[in-house]
Structure formats: structure tokens, C-alpha cells
């Protein structure tokens, strides 16, 4: 049996080096600045994207990959005789998985498992890298799917945005829409819930307190045991991100930590200055 191929989309925000190391296939979404179209995380690095965002009047828009984009990748892998596990951005936020499913239906002979990660950014990324590690060790598609489902339950993610405006204007504000327009300086601590929608877990006053609460929450979510921690930041490592890193260091038993950059598509909807923490129990 050939090794299972793991496919994801660009919104998983997995660094290119990591993708190459683990042999992860990535189908990009698209970012549109007016008439100009860029492939997410391919034509446009996060750095370039946030530069453009500053200079661009109006907001960029994003679009899911076409079924044909997925078809091409699936076909190539299937022709090589490989089963495919394809893990993607929450269906509550994007039609990406719809395109993946259509492509799958166009290849009835191929062994393709499409999984709704019900998450975004490295929330999907965590699932995908875990899947790729399992695939490298010879796990079957069914084993990988089962493990991914289980991991999805065990991961925690929190994120802070500078302003809710980007989430609102991009239509991805989910259950946090009640917080729009508050006259007090409220920082919601956001997560992506079981339905794969943005949802507030707590509202606090001011960024400092928000950062402290996120660290406390992670510590409480994983009492004692070492945590596999990923910090997702926008380029430049904002003051909030630095403070969060400090707080996490003191509050949490960190088993492994990495930092990834939030890519153009996620950045379009979360806005500059967004910082996220993704955590799961340390494996093995």
C-alpha cells in the first residue's frame, strides 16, 4: 500500500519548510486586491500581504480554490496509487471543502477522505501536520481520519484581534457579532467552536488583561502536562504577541513551541495585529 498523501489548503498556515519536510500537498485559496489576484501563501508572503493591505484602499477579498484546483492535485496523487486524506478550513467559514468534495466526486475510483477541520489557521495546521506524521509512519487513511477527529477535540485555540471590524466586514464574525459597537474598550477572547464558527469565550477589558487571561486559560486547559504550543502572529511580532509569549512562558508547561505567520487569506478576515495560540497535549 502506497503512503497516504495528506492534502490541505493554504489557510492552514503551515510554514513552507514544514510542508516540504512532511510532504504535505497544499492547494491555495486566492486573495483579490481589486482586479489583481494572488495565490495565498504562494504569490504573496504574509509580509508582502500586510504591506499591500496598508497601501490598498478598501479591503481585499478572498475566494476558495476551484474544484479543478483540487482535481489536479487529487488526480496526480491518485494516479500514483496513493490514498488521500484532505483536511480543510471550517466549512462554516469557507466553501473550500465544497470544492474539495466536488473534485472528489469527479474521481470516483480514487480513495479520497475529505475532512472538515472545523478550524482555521494553525488550528487546521495542527491536524494536518499530525496527519502527515502518521502517514510517514505508514498509517492508513482510516487510522489518520480517526486520529484527526480525536485530536480536533483535544486541541484548544484562542485568538485576539486588534479590531472586530475585519471579521465583521468579511462576514466571518460568527457568534462574536454581539460585541460589535461596544463603547467600552473590550477585548474579546475568541475561539473557533465545535461548529467551526468564531465564538467569544470571554470578554475582558483591555489588551493586557486579555493576554493574561489567554495564558491562564491555556494553563487551566492543560493542567500540569506539557503542551505542544504554536503561536500564530502577523509579521513584526506586535507588542501583544510578545507579551503573550512572555505570559505563556511563565504560566504554561511548554513541551514544544513554534511560531507561524498568519497568511494572507486568514489575515484578510482577521486583520493585522491578530495573534493566536494553538495548543494540544504533547505527543509521546
Amino acid at each position: 500500500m502506497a503512503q497516504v498523501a495528506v492534502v490541505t489548503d493554504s489557510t492552514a498556515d503551515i510554514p513552507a519548510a514544514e510542508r516540504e519536510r512532511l510532504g504535505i500537498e497544499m492547494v491555495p485559496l486566492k486573495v483579490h486586491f481589486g482586479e489583481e489576484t494572488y495565490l495565498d501563501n504562494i504569490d504573496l508572503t504574509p509580509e508582502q500581504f500586510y504591506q499591500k493591505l496598508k497601501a490598498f484602499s478598501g479591503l481585499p477579498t478572498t475566494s476558495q480554490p476551484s474544484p479543478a484546483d483540487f482535481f489536479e492535485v487529487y488526480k496526480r496523487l491518485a494516479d500514483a496509487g496513493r490514498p488521500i486524506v484532505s483536511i480543510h478550513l471550517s466549512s462554516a467559514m469557507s466553501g473550500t471543502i465544497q470544492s474539495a468534495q466536488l473534485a472528489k466526486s469527479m474521481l470516483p475510483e480514487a480513495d479520497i477522505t475529505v475532512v472538515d477541520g472545523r478550524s482555521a489557521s494553525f488550528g487546521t495546521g495542527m491536524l494536518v501536520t499530525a496527519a502527515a506524521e502518521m502517514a510517514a509512519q505508514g498509517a492508513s487513511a482510516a487510522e489518520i481520519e480517526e486520529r484527526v477527529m480525536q485530536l480536533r477535540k483535544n486541541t484548544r485555540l484562542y485568538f485576539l484581534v486588534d479590531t472586530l471590524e475585519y471579521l465583521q466586514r468579511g462576514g466571518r464574525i460568527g457568534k462574536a457579532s454581539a460585541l460589535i459597537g461596544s463603547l467600552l474598550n473590550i477585548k474579546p477572547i475568541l475561539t473557533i467552536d465545535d461548529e467551526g464558527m468564531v465564538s467569544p469565550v470571554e470578554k475582558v477589558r483591555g489588551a493586557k488583561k486579555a493576554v493574561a487571561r489567554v495564558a491562564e486559560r491555556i494553563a487551566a486547559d492543560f493542567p500540569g502536562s506539557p503542551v505542544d504550543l504554536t503561536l500564530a502572529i502577523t509579521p513584526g511580532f506586535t507588542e501583544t504577541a510578545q507579551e503573550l509569549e512572555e505570559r505563556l512562558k511563565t504560566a504554561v508547561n511548554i513541551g514544544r513551541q513554534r511560531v507561524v505567520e498568519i497568511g494572507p487569506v486568514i489575515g484578510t478576515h482577521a486583520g493585522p495585529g491578530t495573534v493566536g495560540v494553538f495548543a494540544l497535549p504533547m505527543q509521546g
Partner: protein
Amino acid sequence: MGRRSLSGAEWAAMIMAGAHNLSRHVDRINALNVFPVPDGDTGTNMNMTIRAGVAELERRPSDEAGKAAEVLSRGLLMGARGNSGVILSQLFRGFVKAAAGLREIRVAEFAAALQHGVDIAYKAVVKPVEGTILTVAREAAREGALMARRTDDLALWMRQVLRKAEETLARTPEMLPILRQVGVVDAGGQGLVCLYEGFLEYLQAEDPAADARLAEAFATAARQAQADVPSGRAETARGHAPVQAQIATESIVFPYDMEFFIHRTSPSGPFPEAEFRRALERDGDSVIIIDDGDTVKVHVHSRKPGDVLNLALAYGELTDIHILNMRQQHRGIIGGQEAGSAVGGATREAEIRQPVGVGSGAGGWSAGDPAAGDPPLGMEAATGILSPDDPWPASAAPGRGVPQPHFHAHEMAPYGIVAVSVGEGNAELFRSLGVDVVLTGGQTMNPSTEDVLQAIESLAAEHVMVLPNNPNIILAAEQAAKLAGKPATVIPTRSILQGMAAMLAFLEDEPSDVNARRMAEAAERVVDGQVTKAVRATRINGLDIREGQYIGIMGKEIVSAGDGLFDTVRGLLERMMENGGDVVTVLTGEGSDEEITRRLSDWVAERYPDAELEIRDGGQPLYPYLLAVEQ
């Protein structure tokens, strides 16, 4: 008579006319976009998708219809953008199947293509939702199949298909609550209608023999459709109050929307159309009569449906009779709106719960649910003309499932919140935190139990939280909660700032007991302080206080006093900060002073550099400063 067949090149030209018409309306379609994700790009996505298809047709032209359909389909699939673009690409795959191997496309193939496209699209979409482009396409295809048995004139046929698509589009707000709530028709459906309009334009232009009067009747009907069904006036930008509500139900003069066929018993010569039209127009409007020889299709809005049927019976047997009360439909629409707009809470709830994303769990519209208003017309009307082998019976299609939205526009919100407050600034702060009703009241003007009760009863919510924000109002509020006809919980907040802290702890998704506990705990954590003037001389806590002096009260205790406002506030805040604090909030009221407020801000920044200070204009009387410290 008009054109009866299209070569591959002609068919491609028709598609291009559709694409052209769509591109002209992109901005309008974007403005309608609320479902599945309100990101305002449905028009752009559909336009980019169809343009990709057209580009492919231009690159690889073919005069064989079957080949052209393949080329278009491939282009669409490659260029599909967004949910609506993907669905569009699936709908057009129907032509590939219907025209396979054919040089020309006729009405029969066209009709089959629409139906195949609908079948393919429904299968392709993970969780089809009614009230979207899918519904519009399905109803149009159904009409197409029906009309294909009556005419082989492409323009005439397309006209009917378009009319059905427009009608169905107008009804999308009845099927998808998010549309009704926002007051728009479905954006994807509108895009499809634009394409069909372009098709018809092409077919009519190529059809000099088209019956001008019929065309005019059609145009009139289209105008009528704009005027008396939701499509036209529903076209407000999202977020604004829908215009439906501004139109009185009673202003629908001819409330019965009728449609039927007359099968002429003894057709001797052409149907006396002009005479019949005049008869109908005596007490009706939106008259459309399509004479297809043996069969005459009639559409009219009337006040007396019985009279219309009697008139028609004189010409033959009547079949496929559909009568709908448009006033009832209208009441259904504005009923939902009123429930949403009369009460801030309901509107807010609805926004939070809007379905986001196909496959996000939007699940089954239920015809039996009284909250859903009238059954969707598209479906009701369709049952009458369903052929036995219809692959999509309106109610019993396994796997497709009629969608179930997260909410109905007039469904109750899970929570309503009543807060007692004083000062315009404070009222605004409370509203911005999600409070639905702000009752005015404070130390000297407490709202009555009845006032609180009325506020509770005014909310269309399953559970009401009451924030008295004053020790003197807690009991009245509790009394009101007991008397209320719905569950209500009083959070015993003793100050405005405790009330605000309680609102911060409130989370929409939590059950009421959890919220009640969280809110009460949050209020307890607040150290609150107030500065006012002594109304009489007293000696307390070692402080000699003269009448008219400023006093600083922490909780229930006077902790500072003096002639100077700044010193009194500072003394109070020092005591409040004794056990530390991260966030200091100050609400300025009547008698506060800008200079003193500024000095206070500077002093806090210097004395407590780690604390976040927020100063807002509360506008309360009697208390120049209200303060809160939170850990």
C-alpha cells in the same frame, strides 16, 4: 413564429448575452449577498465564473451545440469561484448531458438541460438550502419542462422560464429567514435571473416574429412583480430596515394571485384574448394570457377569484389552478420583521445566529412550523404541476432534505436584558454592551415593579436578565421577575458599574443559570465608588462632614470627604486601589469638571502605571464621578 433551434454558435451567443447582462448587475447582486456568508461578493464570483466559461467558448468555438456545451462547462468548472460560482458551474453541466452529440439545441433539450443541471447541482451541494439559487433554478426548470410540452418557440418558452425564476426569486425571503430578516432576495438567485434575462434578450432579438403584445404583457408583469412582491422592494442594502414593513398589507388591492390553464372545449379560431383580458382587468391586474392554441395559460391578480374562474369556465375546462393570498404572504413577511425590529434583543439575536456557510448546519425549513409563515410558494405551486416521475417531489426527497435554518425571524431570542440606569451616556454604554431595554431610574426616581414588569414583557425572549444597578431597586425587580409571564432572573447589581461588569460576563451561548452565576460573580468582583455631595452634616469614620461637602463612598462606606472635588475623588480611588486593580473605569456625571477629570487621568497614569484607565461620559445627575476598580 419565433426561432425553434440554436446552433452551437448561436447558443454560445445566447450564453454571452446572459453573461453580459449579469456583469451589468454585479454591484447590485453583491449588495444582496447575505447567505451563506455575508461578504458581499456573490455577484463578483458569479461574474468571474461565467466570464471564465465565456472565455473558454471564445477560445474553442464550435458550431456543434453538444461540443459548445462541453467547452463552456469546462471553462466554468475551471473558473468557479465562491459557492454560487460552483453551483452555477454545476447547473450548466446539464447542457452537456442534454445536448450530447447534438448539432442543435431546441426547447426540449433546453428544458432537459435545466432539469439535469438542477439534479447535478443538488447532488453536488453537501447540504442544499432552499431559498437560494438552487430553488430558483429548480422552479425555473420545472416550468421549463411544463412549457416544453406547450411550445417549441424558444423565446416564448424562455419568457415563461424567466418569469417563473423571477417569481421564485421574489419568494426566497419566505424560505430563508436570513433573507427575510435583512429584507433582500437571494443574491445567487438574482444572478441566475440576470443570466436568464440575457438569454431572453438574445432569443427575442433573434426573433422578429415575437408577439409584441405578449412581450409587453410580460414586461408589465415584470413591473408588477417589482411592485407587489418582495423582490423589488426587498432590494435594500443589507442591514437596513426592510421596505416591506413600510407597505401596508391592505394596500395590496388585488390580493389573490391566480394562475391556471384553460383547455378549450371547442376551439373555433383564435382565443378571444382581448375580450377576456378586458374582462379580467375590470377587477384585477397583472394579467398575462398566453394562447397556445388548444391551451391558454392565464395569470391574474384579482379581488374575486370565483368570478375569474366563472369567466374562464365559459371557454373550457380549467386545470392546474393555483390561488394564493398575497396579503397573507405579506403579513408573513412583515410579521417576521416586526418581531425583529420592535425589540432590539430579537434583532440582535437574529444577527448572531445567521447561518454562515453552506454545510454549517443550516438544516430544514419546516412547513408545519407556524413561525415559518406561509409555506414557500415555489413549493406549494410546484406540487400541482409535479409529474409523477419528478425527481424532486417537494416534500419527500430523501437526502436532499428541506433546510432547517438556525432561527426564524420571529422566533424568540434566547435572552433579553433589562437594565436600570440614569444618564444618557450610561444608557448608551449599556446598549452597546447588549442591553435591550434601559429603564431610567436611580437614587431618587426608582422605577416601579410595573415598569420593570412591562420592560420584561416587552421582550420577545426566552429568558430575561434584569440588572437593577441600585440597592433600592433590587426588590422591585425581583417582584417583577416573579410576576412575569416568562422566566426572568434578577442579578442583584448595586451600581451602574457593577451592572456593566455583569454585562461583560454575559455570554449569549451559555444557559441562563450559568450566565446568572457568571454575571453575579463579575458584579461582586467590582469595587465601586461614588462621589456626591453630603445632604446633611454628619460625623462618620472619623470624618467630620459638613452639608454640601463632597463625599467619596466605597461600597456603602464614606471613605473621603472635603471641599475639593479632586482631592475627594483621589482619596476615594486610593482606598479602592488598596487591594490592587487592573482596570479603572470612571463615569463622569453632572457636576464633573473637565480640568479635574484630566488631572485625575494624569494622576492615575503616574500612581498606577499598570492599570488601564477608561473614562466615559455617563451623564448621571447628582454623582459627578462614578468609579469602579476591577482586578
